[in-house]
């Protein structure tokens, strides 16, 4: 059976004054029905752009490469337009962004905005749409759906607004929900509440989630699989358990050493030297090589291969996999 969603060689190019920038290069991913895939990366890694591409929302003048394929249930959605594209956006695939205050319009009530999303995808009477909206507000865990329905965004707390956004993203009954840093702006205890709700919705609706985040810590115990992006490429893909157990790529390993831990007040964290390179600074060879403590001579000049580590797990690196050594 085909995956719910499959990305094949997704490449996004932007023409710039200095030539061309390729912030996402040949990204391939599979998302199965009902699973949570985390796409983890730092700023500028291309993770958000990848998410936007799934909905045909790459901002102009950015363009997908002709060879890029985005297969939803086996059929390519990269060339959809008009009605078919509208049915995809918010229909088969919903998205929740980071900042609920700018994602919602301040001049309409939550109920109005939610009803608009519902009637865009479903033929319902005014009363039917209202009932569906109230049901959704309850489903996403808003304590008092009726009062939230009539509230303006500024009258809700940050966590409540984010729940309202999730309700809107669910209005078209999507098979895939993209959560793009959807909980980043929230306080950690509220973040935990909202993530719990997302997972409950995934299970009850059989929906898949693409969890886009900069925070590797957030992924533990919440995603089935993880793909780590660095400088426009996927550098490692693995089940969450094995990624945390034995990270395969030097970048992933370095990230783990750089994350502050609660338990161990280690005297010094081990930072990754330098900073995340900009697309114009990417060179031939491995893009992490300038910061890599394990780099070999050839890493600076030759593109590393994608080496399978286990079924569904791979690392883009010249180093032999642990265990082969």
């Amino acid at each position: 059976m085909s995956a719910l969603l499959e990305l094949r060689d997704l490449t996004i190019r932007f023409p710039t004054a200095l030539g061309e920038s390729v912030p996402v290069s040949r990204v391939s991913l599979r998302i199965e029905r009902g699973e949570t895939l985390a796409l983890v990366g730092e700023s500028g890694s291309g993770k958000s752009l990848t998410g936007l591409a799934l909905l045909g929302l790459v901002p102009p003048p950015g363009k997908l490469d002709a060879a890029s394929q985005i297969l939803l249930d086996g059929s390519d959605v990269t060339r959809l337009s008009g009605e078919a594209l509208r049915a995809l956006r918010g229909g088969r695939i919903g998205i929740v962004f980071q900042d609920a205050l700018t994602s919602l319009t301040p001049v309409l009530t939550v109920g109005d905005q939610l009803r608009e999303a519902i009637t865009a995808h479903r033929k319902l009477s005014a009363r039917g749409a209202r009932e569906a909206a109230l049901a959704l507000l309850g489903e996403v865990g808003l304590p008092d759906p009726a009062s939230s329905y009539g509230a303006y965004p500024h009258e809700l707390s940050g966590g409540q607004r984010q729940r309202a956004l999730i309700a809107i993203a669910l209005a078209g009954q999507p098979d895939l929900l993209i959560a793009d840093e959807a909980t980043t702006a929230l306080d950690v205890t509220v973040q935990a509440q909202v993530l719990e709700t997302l997972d409950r919705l995934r299970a009850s609706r059989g929906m898949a989630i693409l969890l886009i985040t900069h925070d590797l810590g957030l992924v533990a115990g919440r995603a089935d699989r993880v793909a780590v992006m660095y400088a426009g490429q996927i550098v490692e893909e693995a089940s969450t358990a094995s990624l945390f157990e034995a990270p395969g790529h030097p970048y992933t390993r370095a990230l783990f050493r750089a994350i502050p831990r609660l338990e161990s007040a280690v005297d010094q964290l081990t930072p990754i030297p330098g900073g995340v390179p900009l697309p114009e600074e990417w060179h031939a060879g491995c893009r992490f090589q300038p910061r890599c403590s394990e780099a070999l001579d050839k890493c600076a000049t030759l593109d590393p291969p994608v080496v399978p580590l286990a079924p569904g797990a791979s690392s883009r690196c010249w180093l032999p996999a642990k265990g082969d050594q």
Partner: protein
Amino acid sequence: MSQPLLEVTDLVKRYEAGGPLRRRHPVYALNGVSFAIARGETLGLVGESGSGKSTLGRIVVRLVPASGGSVRFEGQEVFGLEGAPLRALRRRMQMVFQDPYSSLNPRLRAGTAVAEGLEIHRLLPRGEVAGRVAQLFEEVGLDASYVSRYPHELSGGQRQRVGIARALAVDPGFLVCDEPVSALDVSVQAQVLNLLKGLQQRRQLSFLFIAHDLAVVRQLAHRVGVMYFGRIVELASAEVIIQRPRHPYTRALLSAVPQPDPRRQRSRIVLSGEPPKPTAPPPGCPFFSRCFHPSKDSRCTAELPLLRPVGESQVACHYAERSTNSAP
């Protein structure tokens, strides 16, 4: 114990509500906050947005006026200082801001920004400023060639280093760091945390280190204060806060910190309910609406719990002695 470097007593920050007739209640950003910081010590403050932690930092360095209470620095009352004594105070305490993008003047070269403090306080003859700036750049791990760069030509981590050099220029004894790494990428965060830690040891600095991330605070703080709704609800050594938290909010906060360790996830406490609105503060415990403590009862809604010693900690919970172990 000798006299603390900084002593904050019963600090209050009240914002009068606007609107016609001022009929709405004032909002308390801080409501009776007290703590002390010893020389060479780092006190970490954690709390959610709106808990008052940034307001507190700004009041301490006299960027924002307080509505009540006192801040004593090296034994001297900070409120009410004007003119030369205030300028002298500002040489002794400095601030590192969260956002290195907006806290540096985009039209000043990095070296000029760092030199400003030296010039304002006339600390050095003009001819020696450039040499001192170069030293400061080296101390924060920036190549001397960066002095002529503009902020937009620097990465986030480099900008934060400039912000730190700028604070150090006047040779302060005390730094308020307000979320100094939360705008930075994970791979760069550790660089700046290590830098701050090294500076503290070399220069014998004291820090008030404010952050929302307990794991970050943990890296530098000797003691940690947990803020909720304008009050400190728990204050203890970093070790005790992490290992034996007593306030239910501290426990929830600890369990919610995203940590890359799947084993931690089993004991996750997920709160329900919403925090109270600042415009309608409850009469009792502000955490009541989200509290999962099995002993919580009508006393919590009627009577505000005050910070009091319990074991190795200070805790503002009526039932801090009782276990919260039947948590959901």
